[in-house]
């Protein structure tokens, strides 16, 4: 029983321990792929740990798609602790796929700056309250329903999640940019390739929360900066 020597392991008690920000952190450190291995579905040693992990990993891979990184770089494999052969199969298969995709960043023309910027925004997004709340509530919303007893279907949750991911990543990108120096809506719009009216809406939302403030003007354009 032999397999490629390209994998480095980090041990956790349960895949439920894995915080989505850890996955993005690994990519920020330059790994080309993250393989997460846990119990078979429905056989979690910690009852529901791998279900929660699956929710988080699914969210992270949706986020990777949004920021232009091949989501095949993240894979959640299931096996029992007695299945050595399956481990080898998963390790070999995953390494092969990563070799096909190539080094991290190839998807976005190996622009290291852009890659780092997007990954940092993504990491900030999964560390912020909204995404964590939604993903934490996912199981309950699908099994028991919300306060009004309405149960969400997988379809609805997926659509909802995609919307929030898109919003959150944009918001975090704007915050990262404003961290450097005050910018106008147009500047932000050009830097992150988002139409000005959407940038304005996000910035207005951030102002309402007291995150962003008006710094001054550049000619007739208002400049925004992060609140102290």
């Amino acid at each position, binding site marked *: 029983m032999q397999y490629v020597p390209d994998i480095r392991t980090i041990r956790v008690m349960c895949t439920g321990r894995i915080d989505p920000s850890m996955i993005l952190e690994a990519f920020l450190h330059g790994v080309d792929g993250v393989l997460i291995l846990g119990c078979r579905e429905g056989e979690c040693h910690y009852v529901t740990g791998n279900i929660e992990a699956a929710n988080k990993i699914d969210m992270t891979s949706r986020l990777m798609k949004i920021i232009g990184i091949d989501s095949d770089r993240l894979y959640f494999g299931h096996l029992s602790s007695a299945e050595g052969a399956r481990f080898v199969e998963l390790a070999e298969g995953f390494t092969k796929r990563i070799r096909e995709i190539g080094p991290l960043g190839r998807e976005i023309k190996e622009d290291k700056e852009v890659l780092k910027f997007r990954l940092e925004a993504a990491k900030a997004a999964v560390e912020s*309250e*909204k995404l964590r*709340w*939604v993903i934490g509530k996912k199981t309950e919303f699908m099994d028991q329903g919300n306060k*009004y007893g*309405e*149960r*969400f*279907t*997988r*379809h*609805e949750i997926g659509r*909802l999640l995609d*919307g*929030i991911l898109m*919003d959150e990543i944009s918001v975090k990108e704007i915050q990262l940019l404003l961290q450097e120096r005050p910018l106008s809506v147009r500047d932000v719009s050009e830097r992150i390739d988002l139409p000005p009216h959407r940038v*304005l*809406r*996000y910035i*207005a*939302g951030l*102002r*309402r*929360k*007291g995150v962003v*403030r008006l710094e001054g003007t550049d000619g007739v354009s208002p400049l925004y900066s992060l*609140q*102290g």
Partner: protein
Amino acid sequence: MGKKSVLVVGGGLSGINLALEQAEAGNEVYLVEDSPGIGGERLLYDKDSGTVDFVSPDLKKVKSKKNISIITNADIEKVEDGDGKFNIRIKKRASRIIEEKCDDCKACIEVCPINLWDDEDQGLSFRTAIDFFNQVDSSYNIVKETPVCQRSCPVNLDIRGYIGLIADGRFEESLALIKEVLPFPSICGYVCPHPCEDVCNRGKVDYPLSIRDLKRFVADKEIHDHTKPKQEAVKPEGKGELVAVIGSGPAGLTCAHDLAVLGYGVTVFEALPRPGGMLAVGIPDYRLPRDILEKEIGAVTALGVEIKYNTSIGKDIAIEDLFSQGYKAIFIAVGAHKSLGMRIPGEDAEGVLSGVTFLRDLNLGSPVEVGKKVAVIGGGNVAIDSARCALRLGAKEVAILYRRSRQEMPASDEEVEAALEEGVNVEFLVAPLEVLSSDGKVTGFKCVRMELGKPDASGRRSPIPVEGSEFVMELDTIMPAIGQAPDTSFIERGFGIELTKRGTIKVNPDSLGTNMPGVFAGGDCQTGPWIAIGAIAAGKKAAKSIDIYLRSLAMQ
């Protein structure tokens, strides 16, 4: 001058000042505001200056005044002017927040997954579904709206829910969700004119979702997939009281179904030899396959509902007798089967056959003959059904005469399209003047061309005859299909139920109760001819009212 009460509409700067002035004058003031908080424009909290005071309505003062009642998140629904006094009805929307428990931490806003355009801000920014109106007022509220499709559905079906389940491939759960409300998913899947699709937001982008066909899909799937009839084990609580339902159309059967589920013993009296009402005798079988109809009605009888056929109320059994036979409540749902006449000369000639009668005879398998040249008068679905059936029976030429234009035609678009496709000739802006006959047999029709004038009370432009445009059509059969009314002759025969001026049964719209205690009415006989899903909604409402009525009887 004594103490007066004053209504101030609008909680902005001037509204608040006005309220304060009126309160100073000693009046009882009601301050009504549409948005969830008072204070006028939504103010941004400016951390730099630490203030929001650039326009400063005196919020504290207005809140502390004892003789000012603040009603936020509310609309004025109705103003009645009478004798120097106004009676005002205000609708207050629920804020869905328990204010005493809220400690203004704003965590809810941070985590709310829903992003909306901020309607309080002219859509300039985002708000989440939960938000406060302004920083000072801190009145939080949750925006929660029923989807438009669900609102448009007379039975308030959870359309978003069942379509979502279909998208997930959870077909059985989807059907179960539909059946929680609607006992006839398959029937509605075939014939419902789907008001939901008319309002579907997707229609603004391209086409509305095919809500009706999706329902038909899950309902049919059950019928086709299961070799075993899958009967749900329903456990009636056995309340025991008997209820009589008159008419086995969609209203009657729905009412019977809901009452049987609640545990009442239900008997349905049907004048015809077949159940279903207009579904069975009005709608042709190419639109609603009879095995579907039978299966879904079978599910109602499987609950223990008994249907007595060929029993006409007022003829075979008197309505008063039902009470003496032990029925504690009666639901009248006899539908609207009486065809309205054209009120033109020559109407009695042989060869004039009303559309409703024609369809009923055809559906009951009675011998029906149509001539070679047929004209149907009217623009509703009955007219279209009659025309298409006449064509199927062998008529060579079938024309529909309608006095307005295609735009005003009440029949569903797809039905009109289908009729045209099959070769029915639709003549718009034509009205009949006289039936021509020889030896008492129809030979033709004298008609006149019309043009559209000003919109009438219904909002449709009323047709005006074009002078000198009269012409004659040669015909063998004439089918008026210009409307139906309920056949209330059984009531007129001495049973004291009040009717409306339109000849429909008069009810309390909240309960569907008639002027006689224990007698309820709904469906086409109460509304005039309408759609099946409307009748189903009436059946559901009646069942609820009858349950309340019988339980209150039991309490006495």
